[in-house]
């Protein structure tokens, strides 16, 4: 008898390139993997509002401020959208936030680095969102329907973010010596962490096995990282930025850029909580979440009170 509730049927659907929808059968491991990945993705969008938010009040022109505010609003919207998509898997937003606060759920390591000068806003858009797009374009073909659709929508906005980031960098590189120095400084600090966003090298990547089989992950860490490097080096050179990697070199035979060794000790140190801003980012989220408790309580109390009144009237 044909049984739709078996792992083999599920795998056949995956292999046939079908999307899996929330009410469809899925193995526990698939569900868990997606909850972990999607909640991490949602948390990253939300925590990512902090380093950029650090410059809103100091944005140097009204236009720059408007673009930055709109961009951060987009990120918050992505967070909201991804929380909703993850909720279709049977976990609530409150649970996901609790997991973030207890450290069970993570967010992208990149946001544990500080935004120190205005060019960092450029670098975050260009490099961090640029790296995220490479990953997210690939995730548009991920097997879970709601996640795939979220990625299609998010990618459209992210490419705008990347362009505005590059525009800031380009403008500063055409500017005064001080501005050029800020841009290069930002490049130097964000380049390596941006490369680390793709995760460990393929031979060291612990989650890839099932994720590839289930077509959650469509391309390997190293493949995606290489795509990012290949498109970014030329953009950097075009505006006069020096790559902070003396081993960056075009490799004619491979048709790719070679790059220097990534400092994985730093990667693991930051993931374990010892990055420059880990404590600050999480404290910020927890503190404002706690500070907002009375507002959420009030909204709930008001809703219940008036629901009762409606029932009495009815």
């Amino acid at each position, binding site marked *: 008898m044909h049984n739709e509730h078996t792992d083999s049927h599920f795998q056949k659907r995956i292999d046939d390139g079908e999307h899996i929808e929330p009410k469809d059968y899925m193995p526990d491991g698939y569900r868990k993997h997606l909850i972990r990945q999607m909640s991490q993705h949602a948390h990253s969008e*939300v925590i990512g*509002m*902090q380093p950029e*938010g650090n410059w*809103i*009040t*100091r944005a*140097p*022109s*009204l*236009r*720059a*401020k*408007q673009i930055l*505010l*709109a961009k*951060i*609003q987009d990120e*918050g*919207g992505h*967070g*909201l959208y991804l*929380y909703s998509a993850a909720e279709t898997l049977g976990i609530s937003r409150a649970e996901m936030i609790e997991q973030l606060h207890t450290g069970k759920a993570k967010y992208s390591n990149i946001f544990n680095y500080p935004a120190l000068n*205005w060019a960092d806003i450029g670098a975050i858009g260009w490099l961090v969102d640029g790296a995220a797009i490479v990953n997210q374009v690939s995730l548009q073909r991920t097997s879970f329907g709601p996640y795939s659709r979220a990625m299609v929508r998010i990618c459209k906005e992210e490419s705008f973010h990347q362009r505005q980031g590059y525009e800031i960098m380009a*403008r*500063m590189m055409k*500017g*005064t010596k*001080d*501005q050029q120095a800020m841009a290069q400084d930002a490049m130097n600090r964000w380049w390596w962490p941006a490369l680390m966003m793709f995760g460990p090298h393929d031979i060291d990547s612990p989650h890839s096995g099932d994720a590839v089989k289930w077509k959650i992950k469509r391309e390997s860490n190293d493949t995606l990282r290489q795509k990012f490097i290949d498109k970014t080096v030329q953009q950097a050179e075009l505006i006069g930025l020096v790559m902070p990697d003396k081993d960056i070199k075009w490799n004619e035979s491979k048709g790719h850029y070679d790059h220097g060794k990534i400092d994985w000790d730093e990667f693991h140190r930051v993931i374990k909580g010892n990055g420059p801003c880990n404590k600050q980012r999480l404290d*910020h989220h927890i503190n*404002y979440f706690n*500070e*907002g*408790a*009375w*507002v*959420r*309580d*009030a*909204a709930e*109390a*008001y809703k219940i*009170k008036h629901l009762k009144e409606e029932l009495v009237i009815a």
Partner: protein
Amino acid sequence: MTKKEELYLYTLRLGDNALILSHRLSQLCSKGPILEEDLALTNIALDLLGRAQALLKYAGEIEGKNRSEDDLAYRREEKNYYNLLLTEQPNKDFAHVIARQLFISTFEFFLFQELEKSADTTLSAIAGKTIKEVKYHLQHASDWTIRLGDGTKESHDRMQSAINDLWMYTGELFEMNGIDLDLLTQGIAVDTIPLQKKWRDCINSVLNEATLFVPKDTYMQTGSINGVHSEHLGHILAEMQYLQRAYPDAKW
């Protein structure tokens, strides 16, 4: 004062209100009680910023000294700012943010309906666009005032404190000087005196539904119409103007 100077200062005042309130709201980014509210407050900040850009650009054009909206925003000192004291008051808690917005949006709801009838076509056009946005701001602030006032004891007390604390800054909303009166005779400025009763009725009705008391009229603070501010504005400008002041030759 020439008509041009009067129109410049009147437009600047409208622009400064939007700029400074937008700045205050933008400080709340990533600090909302829920993500949805973070987005809503950013939305309002963005509306106000767009309005500030349009008004300051127009002010610069009227002035005719080749100053852009950025020059006016980033290179003017405190005493040449004319925003209402209410707009610069700090984000003490969410109740204060909402009370400030309720007072201002209610005022703007009536102000921009009148300004849309202005003989100055640019101000009229900006007012026409603004009124659509202000309707949403007012709805948002009213809903939260009612929810917080009629929510829990804590939210009720916080909302009442915020209303009480900010009440003394509401007298300024209706203040007019010689510039207003001159421009009023030319059909350009808004007569704010008749707006006061409408504002009062509207606020009374929202506070009443929110189970909150309307504060007794006490002394009303004033000064912004002459460029005299609370201590808060200096800090806002120090932060906002930092890059423009530190690197005067740079273009951003």
